[in-house]
């Protein structure tokens, strides 16, 4: 349960680094050591609190001289409207410690409405402070939702690996699609018999042309190593490797609307011409 005290008009809450001025309803920020010392005095209001105890609570984990405590007491007195000469509320017990007048200290119950009204703005302030701190965190850290460099580095590495593997996979898929598209660019074999191979989307032409060439080869007793023919829409090309290995390549630019028979005749003529 959170403890809270009201010292004169100032409200101190155990877990808060701020104090609230109930007159002005504003939060005040005093030195951390002053606040811790004041809290310790409040916890033991009306009782002597030794210097050692105040030094232990006011500077936790640190070893400091008495002069630090003296300065802190001076600051607290100033806050309370007191001073070392008058010692109205905060008295010095020589060589022992200090005592805070219990008449100005009121313990506030946590459950009461009044303490909530004190705590709430402090909590809001703390929340706001946290958000301010959060906005000061680099954007990358916030995006990765990590707090320290190690976890950020780990998350960033995993993310980078995922990105690289995704990019690599995408490229491979793209390449595969591309290859498929490109490898289907040229027609497949539509006629293959003996030395003659014809590549064409026009199978009717391929069969007629293949038969025509074979007939001519048989008739003239020619035995070439290869005759390869490619018919595209307006291109007819062939490559002949004769029996002796002599190569003949030719491309014929066709007119639109050429009929199969005309192309077959043209091709057979060209083949026969190549052997003569």
């Amino acid at each position, binding site marked *: 349960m959170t403890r809270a005290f009201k010292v004169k008009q100032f409200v101190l809450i155990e877990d808060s680094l701020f104090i609230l001025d109930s007159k002005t309803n504003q939060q005040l920020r005093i030195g951390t050591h002053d606040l811790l010392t004041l809290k310790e005095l409040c916890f033991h209001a009306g009782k002597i609190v030794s210097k050692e105890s105040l030094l232990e609570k006011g500077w936790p984990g640190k070893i400091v001289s008495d002069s630090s405590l003296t300065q802190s007491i001076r600051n607290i007195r100033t806050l309370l409207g007191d001073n070392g000469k008058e010692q109205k509320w905060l008295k010095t017990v020589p060589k022992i410690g200090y005592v805070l007048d219990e008449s100005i200290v009121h313990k506030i119950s946590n459950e009461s409405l009044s303490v909530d009204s004190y705590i709430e703005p402090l909590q809001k302030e703390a929340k706001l402070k946290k958000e301010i701190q959060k906005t000061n965190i680099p954007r990358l850290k916030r995006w990765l939702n990590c707090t320290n460099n190690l976890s950020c580095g780990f998350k960033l590495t995993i993310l980078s690996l995922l990105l690289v593997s995704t990019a690599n996979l995408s490229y491979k898929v793209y390449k595969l699609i591309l290859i498929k598209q490109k490898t289907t660019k040229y027609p497949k074999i539509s006629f293959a018999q003996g030395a003659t191979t014809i590549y064409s989307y026009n199978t009717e032409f391929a069969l007629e042309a293949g038969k025509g060439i074979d007939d001519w080869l048989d008739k003239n007793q020619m035995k070439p190593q290869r005759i*390869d023919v*490619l018919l*595209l829409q*307006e291109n007819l*090309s062939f*490559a002949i*490797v004769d029996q002796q290995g002599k190569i003949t390549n030719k491309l014929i*630019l066709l007119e639109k609307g050429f009929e199969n028979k005309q192309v077959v005749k043209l091709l057979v003529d060209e083949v026969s011409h190549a052997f003569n």
Partner: protein
Amino acid sequence: MLSISLFLVAFLNILLFIIYGFSDTPGVAYDIDYRVEDVASDYCGRSKSQIYFDDNKFEMKSVVEEITPNNEKLYFETQKKGTYLSLSENVYSMSFTEHTSNFIGNKRLPETPIINSFYSAERYLPNRNLIEIKHRSENYLILISFINGGQILALERH
């Protein structure tokens, strides 16, 4: 049309062309020689090339003679360099990176089929210059090339 005699004006020098898979050994050179005719006009042309493949790079040197339907003779020499990529066992994609030309006696770029094919913008687009090898032998190679919009060719090995 066909009676027009065509002569090659210059000899081919070096055609360097390497395609992994064209041969088991690197540094393979081939000769390519083809004629082009147009059934609709008196145009005809001839191209002779040497191509050399080595270490995924190629060099190609070509000499072209073309006779326009107006009986105008055009001579053209070109040297190309580039790289090739094996897309599958018999399919290769060629990319042209360098191109130097000499239009012998011609001040402007002629718009004739063979030269147009050499200068087509497609030559410089990736994955547009595909070659499909259809047959391999010790002495020659049969392939369908991107040349002239799709042409089957027999290449003689050096």
